[in-house]
């Protein structure tokens, strides 16, 4: 039993099921991020937790109480919307205290709560303004203030940063994280931005097509993605997926791939992996940062394989240099040190950290577990 339990929940509009048997249990104080491309059902799930959409089947409980059919205002939740949804006719102060007023909290208490929240978010000087007179970042703060003042069991965030410009988004991201570390309130946060998901969360649910593809810590999601979708959706640049053939030699398995000249090359997997896949095709997944030059390889790596291949394009990006090459007919991106000595069209000795390599079943696209 968690603090927020989503048990076997489905959502259907008529005969079309848009969410299939979602099971997520969130502990108190966790920061759960629901991430996925648009139309994956993440906002629908959030609205169901909030009570804005009905639950077709299954059960949602908050703090030990089943909330199916309970009105949104009685679930002790607060929500921050993508458009902020500030009431245009009320001042910032009235916006923040509207919820308390609706719940019959006396004026003196409301003012006290408002003052606390305003100083926490540094919006004291804005309390008498109307939302129309605020900048995007200020509106965002007010929207958070309106949620904070309720002192809810669970905060729900619906893509709260997607209306901000790039720089402000990064600042507010840090601020949300600080706020969570300070208040330790349970959060469910919806976003389509995988960076936001990885940086903010304590756990991530990656969603696609109405299914939770994988639920885990950011590290688990990043290092051991459950399937090809999760592998390519999380991380930027995306994980390289290359068709390969498994060759077994003694205890060791090798991935046989073609370099850009069509010559076969073999990369040794870590011991005892893929023993029953001899001679079969797999999809080999390698993160860009696991492909480097020899000196740039991770010192803690136990299994670094070398591969000589022709360099395609090099893209210096300040902190890193991205290098592309062709493996088994696919473009592969490597993330290398900024000062790496590499030139296009040259033959180069790539170092591949096979500790970080994963293999997928080409039929089901699921990860093959060791």
């Amino acid at each position, binding site marked *: 039993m968690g603090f927020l339990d989503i048990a076997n929940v489905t959502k259907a509009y008529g005969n079309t099921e848009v969410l299939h048997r979602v099971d997520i249990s969130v502990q108190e104080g966790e920061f759960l991020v629901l991430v996925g491309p648009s139309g994956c059902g993440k906002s629908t799930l959030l609205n169901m937790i909030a009570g*804005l959409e009905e639950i077709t089947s299954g059960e949602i409980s908050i703090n030990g109480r089943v909330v199916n059919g309970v009105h949104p205002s009685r679930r002790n939740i607060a*929500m921050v919307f*993508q*458009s902020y949804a500030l*009431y245009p*006719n009320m001042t910032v102060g009235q916006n923040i205290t*509207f919820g308390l007023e*609706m*719940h019959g909290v006396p004026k003196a208490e409301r003012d006290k709560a408002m003052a606390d929240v305003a100083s926490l978010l540094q919006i004291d000087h804005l309390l008498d303004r109307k939302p129309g007179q605020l900048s995007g970042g200020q509106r965002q703060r007010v929207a958070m203030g*309106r949620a904070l003042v309720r002192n809810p069991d669970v905060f729900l965030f619906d893509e709260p940063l997607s209306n901000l410009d790039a720089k402000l988004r990064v600042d507010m991201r840090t601020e949300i994280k600080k706020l969570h570390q300070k208040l330790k309130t349970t959060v469910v946060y919806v976003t389509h931005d995988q960076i936001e998901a990885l940086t903010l969360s304590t756990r991530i649910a990656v969603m696609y097509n109405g299914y939770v593809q994988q639920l885990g810590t950011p590290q688990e999601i990043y290092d051991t993605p459950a399937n090809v979708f999760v592998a390519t959706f999380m991380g930027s640049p995306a994980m390289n997926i290359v068709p390969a053939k498994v060759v077994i030699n003694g205890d060791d398995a090798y991935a046989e791939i073609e370099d850009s000249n069509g010559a076969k090359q073999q990369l040794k997997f870590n011991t005892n992996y893929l023993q029953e896949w001899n001679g079969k095709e797999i999809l080999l997944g390698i993160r860009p940062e696991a492909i480097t030059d020899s000196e740039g390889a991770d010192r803690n790596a136990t299994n670094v394989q070398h591969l000589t291949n022709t360099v395609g394009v090099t893209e210096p990006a300040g902190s890193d240099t991205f290098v592309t090459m062709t493996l088994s007919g696919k473009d592969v991106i490597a993330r290398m040190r900024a000062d790496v000595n590499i030139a296009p069209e040259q033959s180069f000795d790539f170092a591949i950290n096979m500790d970080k390599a994963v293999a997928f079943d080409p039929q089901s696209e699921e990860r093959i577990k060791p």
Partner: protein
Amino acid sequence: MSVASQDTAVRTGGFVRATIYLVLVMFALFYLVPFYVMLSNSLKPLAEVTGGNMMAIPETWTIDAWLAAWSSAQIGVEPTGLKPYFWNSILMVVPAVAISTILGALNGYVLTKWRFRFDNIVFGLLLFSCFIPFQIILIPMARMLGIMGLAGSTPGLVLVHVVYGLGFTTLYFRNYYAAFPTELVRAAQIDGAGFFRIFWRIMLPVSGPIAVVSIIWQFTNIWNDFLFGASFADVDSMPMTVALNNLVNSSTGVKEYNVHFAGAILAAMPTLLVYIVAGRYFVRGLMAGSVKG
């Protein structure tokens, strides 16, 4: 701003511009002449009207015709002037406008923010009422008013006008609220506001422009209505328009044209005032919602 709008205007030469202004002034005069005739003749004694030039400025200025039209002219069989009928009209127009506007706002709110199955069909049917000719419903409505015991009364007229106005007011408010972000309603729900609280505290305060449109539209139509007034009102609830007709058609004695002119202006005055006071909001409100932001 002014620089930008000048740039987008079509540049024309002085001659073309002068011609445009000339034509515009002529059109304005053309429409103002009848009003001038009414005003000047209402301020003349009757003898000057019948004996003199219709276009002339009064030689003897007098407001006797206005006083007569207001309080002593023969309306049908009673020499009451238009005064009691003016109040009849006010008693009919104010509740009818208020009720149809409030109901239209509620309808628009429900049709956009509390959507239900077949809501578009309901909206379509409401819209359809805008296109039903008045004449068709005269007899059924008379029967309905009779059954409800409202025949020949001001509440009966209010009912008829509310029913007929609902289609328009619903259309206005629905289209206005369609552009109103639904997330605000959801936020208010989470904050604990109920159906009417959200309407009252969140929706209505931002409905100013469209409310003005609805009020002007309804006020003008109901005040100017003659058919329903002539069909469903009796002598105690007869509106201004019907009384004016009776004033002009009263066949005893001479035709007092100066009194008729004064009466006609009195009857038109309230709608004129409403336009002058709220007209600019009318144009603004009609445009609202058509362009986002």
